[in-house]
Every structure is written in C-alpha cells, then in structure tokens.
C-alpha cells in the first residue's frame, strides 16, 4: 500500500491535489464555524448552486477563463443573499431555496441546449460531484488556492475577536462600534471565493459538507469558540487527507470520499459526546 502511494506521489498533480484539498478544507472549516453559528449553513449550498449556474454560462460562452464569469456572479449572489436575509418580503430561507434551485435548473438547461460538448452528462457530473477534476489542476490553480488560503487565515488571525463578537451578538458588537455589516460582507465575499475554488475539489453539490461537517463535529465535543475553531480546522484537514488517500487507493471519487470520512468523524464525535460527556 505504501509502495502504491509513493508511486502516486511521484506525480506532481497528485501532490497539487493533496495540497489544494487540504487548504480548501481548512478555509471551509474556519468559515463554516461562523456560518453554522449564524444559521447561515445553507448559504454555502445556495452559493455553490449559483456557481454551477455561472459555470454553465461560462461553458456555453466558450470562455477560456471561466473564473471571469463564475467568480463575480457568485460574489454578487453572496452579497444579495445576505441582504435578503434582512429583507422580510421573502423569507430568508425561501429566497435562498429559490436562488439555489433556480440556478441549478437554468445551468443544466443552458448546458443541454447550447453546449457543443459531446459528453454533456459527463460534464454535468464533473461539475456537480467534482470526480476527477482535482487531478487536472495546473500550477495557476494551486497558487490561487495558496493565496486565497493565506487571505482567509490572515483575516481570521487579525479579526478573530471581532468575528467572535459579531457571530455571538451582533447588537452588542454594533453598540461597541464594530462595523458588523462590513464583517458580514467580508465573510460572505470570502465564502463565495472559497466555494468557487472548492468546486474543483468536491464539486458544487458537496461543498457545503466541507463547510458544515467539521464545525458541527467540533461543537459536539468542545465548549469554547477558540477550541471549536481549532478542532474544526484539525478535523477538516485530517478528513481531507484521509479522504484523498483512500480515494486514490480505492479508485473512489475524491469529493464523495472526503465527505464520507467527515460523516464518520461526525458520528464518532457524537458518540463520544453522548457516551463520555453525557450530553
């Protein structure tokens, strides 16, 4: 088994995949803690569907650099969704569901009607579930991921206490002079950016698993914000590495395997919290 792994790791694309996978999982888990606690778990899901729709538009337009379309549309959707959750005309969850399935349907429609590709089903499946696209990363993708991860980490280090305050109690944070709306905007824009990157790793349907599972597992056991953050990051990295190694050895789809490992960890943590901590 070790022999087989070391054979695989001679290829640069396997190393790239592992590096990018770990970085994306790390960023998703950190953002996930605040998103889950603010009851915004589904924003990740909605945004990933929007990113899928945008990807379909880019594919139909035959753009060489799809990011130019996907990135701005997803960021815009993130901003609108956050605004929407404060607007009471259409309830937050309903507008989210509307945008989410709407983008999915329109994306699939566009791909079917206008696409020049001969393997539409394969293309759709790759975008939705990631399958092998993580093994086709080029050096540019890897650098983009490294830069984005550094941005996310620096943001969390510099603004950790403010992010805590805004997540725990927005009214109080505003009263003490913290620009809570700016922090919310910053978090949602960065979430959108990470989701666009993560599409290559796990595909757009499974991204929210990377956002939700590590924080939820961590919250079952740990009882301070700091420990939940740290544990969530560790869980995400361990699950990403384990999932990718297993998928390479078992020739399983990468994204789905990572999510499966996350589910197992969640069940173990839940069991621990019930049996040992008696919660």
């Amino acid at each position, binding site marked *: 088994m070790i022999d087989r792994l070391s054979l695989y790791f001679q290829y640069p694309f396997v190393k790239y995949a592992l590096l990018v996978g770990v970085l994306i999982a790390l960023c998703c888990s950190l953002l996930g803690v605040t998103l889950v606690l603010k009851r915004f778990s589904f924003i990740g899901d909605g945004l990933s569907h929007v990113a899928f729709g945008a990807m379909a538009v880019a594919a139909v337009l035959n753009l060489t650099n799809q990011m130019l379309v996907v990135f701005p549309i997803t960021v815009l959707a993130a901003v609108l969704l956050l605004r929407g959750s404060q607007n009471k005309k259409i309830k937050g969850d309903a507008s989210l569901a509307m945008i989410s399935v709407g983008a999915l349907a329109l994306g699939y429609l566009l791909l079917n009607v206008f696409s020049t590709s001969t393997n539409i089903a394969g293309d759709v499946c790759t975008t939705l579930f990631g399958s092998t696209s993580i093994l086709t990363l080029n050096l540019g993708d890897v650098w983009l991921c490294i830069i984005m991860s550094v941005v996310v980490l620096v943001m969390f280090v510099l603004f950790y*206490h403010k992010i805590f305050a805004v997540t725990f109690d927005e009214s109080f944070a505003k009263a003490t002079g913290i620009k809570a709306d700016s922090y919310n905007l910053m978090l949602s824009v960065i979430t959108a950016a990470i989701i666009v990157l993560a599409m290559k790793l796990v595909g757009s349907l499974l991204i929210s698993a990377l956002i939700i599972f590590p924080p939820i597992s961590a919250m079952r056991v740990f009882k301070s914000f700091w420990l939940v953050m740290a544990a969530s990051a560790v869980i995400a990295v361990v699950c990403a590495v384990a999932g990718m190694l297993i998928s390479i050895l078992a020739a399983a789809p990468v994204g789905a395997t990572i999510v499966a490992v996350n589910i197992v960890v969640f069940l173990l943590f839940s069991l621990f919290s019930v049996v040992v901590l008696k919660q």
Partner: protein
Amino acid sequence: MLQLKCQDVSLGYEGKTIIKHLNFQVGAGDYLYIVGENGTGKSTLIKTLLGLRPPLEGEIEFADRLKPTEIGYLPQQTQIQRDFPASVWEVVLSGNLNTTGLRPFYKKAEKERAEMNMEKLGILDYKKRCYRDLSGGQQQRVLLARALCATGKMLLLDEPVAGLDPKITNEMYELIQKLNQEGITIIMVSHDMAAACKYADHILHIAHKPLFFGTKEDYLKTDTGKAFTELVKMEAIGEDEDD
C-alpha cells in the same frame, strides 16, 4: 453632572417618524426607566442612543466625556446565543472591543478588567464554563459583566429580566441597583411598571409621543402614572386569584 441630553428629537426610520419632540436628560448616577407598550419606539430609541441610527430631527448631546460606543449595552438574548459554544471568559472579554481598535489581541489591563467585573458579579468561578450550559440568570450576569467591560459610566439595559423566574428577577434588580449605587448611570428599558416604581429615580414614558419625563414621584401623580399603578394592582389581584 449631565451625561446625555435629548433636545426636541424625532426618531424613526426610512422617512417614517415614530416619536416626535422627545426631550429628556440623564445625569451621572441617575436611574432612568424608559417605559411604554411594545412597538412605540423603545427599540428605535435604544438604537439612536447607541449611535446606530441618526435621529430624524434634533440632537442627542453627550457630555461628561461619554461616547455612544462607551455605553455598556445589555441587549435582549437571541436564539443564536442559547446554544453557542463560547466560554464565559470569551464572552466577557469581548466587552473590551470598543477600546481595542484594529489591535488583534487583548492587553493585560483589558483582561484584568474582565476578571474584576466577573468577580463583582460573582461569576468568576464560571470563567471556563460554557455559556450555553448556564442558567438564564447566570447568562444575564455574564452579559452584564461584558457590558461593564465596555463602560465605566452608563449601562443601557433592554428588558434584562425577560424570561427569568421571580426570584432570579429580584436578584437581577438588586444587582443593578447595587451597580447604580456604586455610581453607574442606569437606563433601563422595560414594561415592568412595578419595578420602575420601586427602583427608578426618573421615568420616561413613551407611546408614539413623549407622555412624560421627570422624577418617579411626579410621574406617580400624573393620570397615566395613576392608571398604570392601578393596572399593576389589578394584575397583582388577578394573579392572586389565579393561584
């Protein structure tokens, strides 16, 4: 000494006026109750006092070197907080954020301040406990300690006893009174008239327009004051009959 003065202020949002011609002032060490039915502009007034929303007309003046961000605010609890994984220490410490600016860490003095306020409110033993595991009364003490970290002068409390049982409610009122006696100005937003009559020295009664501002003694002589106290008595009788 005067700390805060509202002169002919109109409040509202999106061009809609909720209260007009609001006049009142708060001096250092005062205990002001803001009373009134729900939906009459109490929460808009809170937001305006905290500097989160400009008044439509008029001006709110701060004196005694008090800034809106230095008012210690105790907001109503949200659903999010009830199952939030945060230690008591993390919550109380976050009260210092109005002095940290862009600095990403807390200084020693700020940590000592947090410890001092926890000791004052008798929650130092819970320092490492999880906020969500505490009882309602203990949680309010934690939030009060956090508010004290943000201020040395004025506390603004929004329905601080909502959802607490009578015994804990009393303890909370006594605690707030103790803080007031130590020199901290209290602005309490509430519709607990019985408590207002017991603890306040000034009362501001609003109902879309300012009905009354003045001392408690004068308030109890007005028609609304009398009506309210009658109501309180009747409610008390009603509750007795229920038992």
